[in-house]
């Protein structure tokens, strides 16, 4: 039997300790502990690594603190486009979605592609249609919005630049991409 383990991340960036409030810091630590614990329990019960990472990422998507699912960042157009992927190390099967706007948990769509599609990646409307066929939950795009992320968008628009994960108002610091105008 292997020494089963789970590791998670919730994004990286210019997370300045001095600018992250104590209350916010506690929220992040609590969320991370809760999600790691859930993964540990699943693995301890004999659950698969594939199920553990699916569950962990779904829980991270549901937590508005992190940039995925609920709490995802805004595009230049003011909406949300989500991407997700998953890979099984045993079978080398993989699934991914890109540019989806209405799938509540994109990781579940990626998992469904891994299990029920001959393809590896579906994008946009094709991914949305596939998710609907798989009876995955559909939400309005506004479901993913939070006031903190909208504040980040306004700041980024003012600066005319793109903003990496956890570099904006929610984290207290600012970290911009180089001004290469990749957003058009």
């Amino acid at each position: 039997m292997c020494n089963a383990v789970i590791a998670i991340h919730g994004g990286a960036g210019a997370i300045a300790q001095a600018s992250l409030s104590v209350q916010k810091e506690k929220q992040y630590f609590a969320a991370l502990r809760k999600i790691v614990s859930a993964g540990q329990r699943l693995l301890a019960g004999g659950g698969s690594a594939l199920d553990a990472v699916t569950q962990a990422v779904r829980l991270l998507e549901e937590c508005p603190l992190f940039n995925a699912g609920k709490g995802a960042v805004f595009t230049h157009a003011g909406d949300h486009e989500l991407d997700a992927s998953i890979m099984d190390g045993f079978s080398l099967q993989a699934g991914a979605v890109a540019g989806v706007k209405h799938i509540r948990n994109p990781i579940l769509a990626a998992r469904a592609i891994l299990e029920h599609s001959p393809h590896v990646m579906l994008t946009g409307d094709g991914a949305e249609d596939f998710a609907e066929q798989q009876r995955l939950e559909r939400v309005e795009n506004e479901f993913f919005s939070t006031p903190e992320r909208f504040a980040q968008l306004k700041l980024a628009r003012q600066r005319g630049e793109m903003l990496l994960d956890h570099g904006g108002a929610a984290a207290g610091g600012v970290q911009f991409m180089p001004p290469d105008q990749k957003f058009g």
Partner: protein
Amino acid sequence: TVGAVALDQLGNLAAATSTGGITNKHAGRVGDSPIIGAGCYANNASVAVSCTGSGEVFMRTLAAYDIAALVTYSNLSLQEACQKVVMEKIPQLGGSGGLVAVDRLGNVALPFNSEGMYRGYGYIGDAPDVGIYR
């Protein structure tokens, strides 16, 4: 971006990644998160990896697969492979960020070259170990 990697009791590895991308991104822009081999990779013979950071650089370096390749073909340890990719190759191309990784022996690595990374890990029976800053 969020992600997870795991090793189960049967020795199987898996990785998953999900993201909203970057704030103010061009409509249709896709980063490394959904790209197998760039932002997510798992192979029972080597490692499972999930990445976060400046996606275009992780795509150009095939960061997740690069760690698997360094472990498989160069016999680097997981820590050594992560060090080379996250602390050397990605910064050379102007990239920042990090990743979580686990190998088939259950070794865990959570390297990042940015100021911080929200992260955590836990073996069965242990208390979760979580962190944000260096």
